[in-house]
């Protein structure tokens, strides 16, 4: 799938109408989602085509839909918020992609301890505000569900901490060089934002749980 086509499809994906601050509902820009999924997850590692893919905290579904467009065999998006999932379902219809399912749940409370998925791609809450530790809980859940690799976005400032955690979990962790310290825009979507656009430095982290 050509970059331009994937990007075009993902740009059609609608984002949060009223983002919820506690859930850290920042939508990932379509360009970033495109490059992460296509260049890193699929072209570098071959972790999408024909795979069972999960997106934890999928929000409006941009990563889940992108994975399906890149020929994942099956994709499941998990999110706690019914409004986000309603938008995500509309997005699936609108983009016209197949093989994407959604489950409404608290991701950290998720079911059977079974490694059902080959790959997890996710943009979890970064664990700010009243959410401290949520990012790490998401990774722990992802590692439980996944037989292959977990791709997850984290604030670059937490890199050292995550490295220590990865050691405790016994998984190898690398920060993807092309997605280290990338500046993600935080649009002024919420009342507490004083400036129009802020930026946050983010790493794309790959945890390898295949060993």
């Amino acid at each position, binding site marked *: 799938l050509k970059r331009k086509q994937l990007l075009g499809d993902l740009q059609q994906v609608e984002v949060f109408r009223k983002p919820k601050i506690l859930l850290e509902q920042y939508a990932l820009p379509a360009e970033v989602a495109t490059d992460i999924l296509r260049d890193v997850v699929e072209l570098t590692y071959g972790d999408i085509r024909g795979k069972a893919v999960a997106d934890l905290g999928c929000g409006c579904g941009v990563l889940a839909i992108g994975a399906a467009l890149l020929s994942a065999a099956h994709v499941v998006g998990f999110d706690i918020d019914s409004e986000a999932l309603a938008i995500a379902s509309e997005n699936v219809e609108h983009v016209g992609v197949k093989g994407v399912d959604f489950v*409404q749940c608290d991701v950290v409370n998720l079911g059977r301890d079974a490694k*059902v998925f080959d790959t997890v791609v996710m943009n979890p809450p970064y664990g700010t505000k009243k959410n401290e530790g949520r990012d790490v809980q998401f990774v722990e859940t992802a590692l439980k569900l996944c037989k292959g690799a977990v791709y997850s976005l984290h604030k670059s400032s937490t890199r050292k901490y995550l490295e220590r955690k990865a050691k405790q979990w016994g998984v190898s962790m690398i920060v993807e060089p092309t997605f280290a310290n990338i500046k993600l825009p935080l649009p002024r979507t919420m009342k507490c934002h004083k400036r129009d656009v802020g930026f946050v430095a983010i790493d794309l982290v790959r945890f390898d749980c295949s060993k």
Partner: protein
Amino acid sequence: MRLLIHNMLTSVVKGVKKGYPLTIKATKVETKEVEFNGEFIARMIPRMEWAVVKKAAESIGVSGLPDDVASDYESNEDFLKLAHHALLEVEVIEGALQCPESGREFPINNGIPNMLLNEDEV
């Protein structure tokens, strides 16, 4: 909700020990053709609780699954096609999932199961 997903969902209501498998109470089921990918199904089979797949399939009107996974399942196309149909082509659109221990029901609307718990259930 496809059976591939049903297979991994549990009820984690406070006090419930296993909460698995969830009973499906379907009011609307749809069947949609999905492209067959035998290699993918073969990879998923060992990750599934087959007895749960079979029982769940029967509860929504999909019969003909064998009691056990075929011993040569990786190369047994007939088996893989049956499994493919049950796991990916049949979808519960409306209904509920019921916890086998507490009886708590989790609604399924528009194909999406809602596994959220109330604060006093966590």
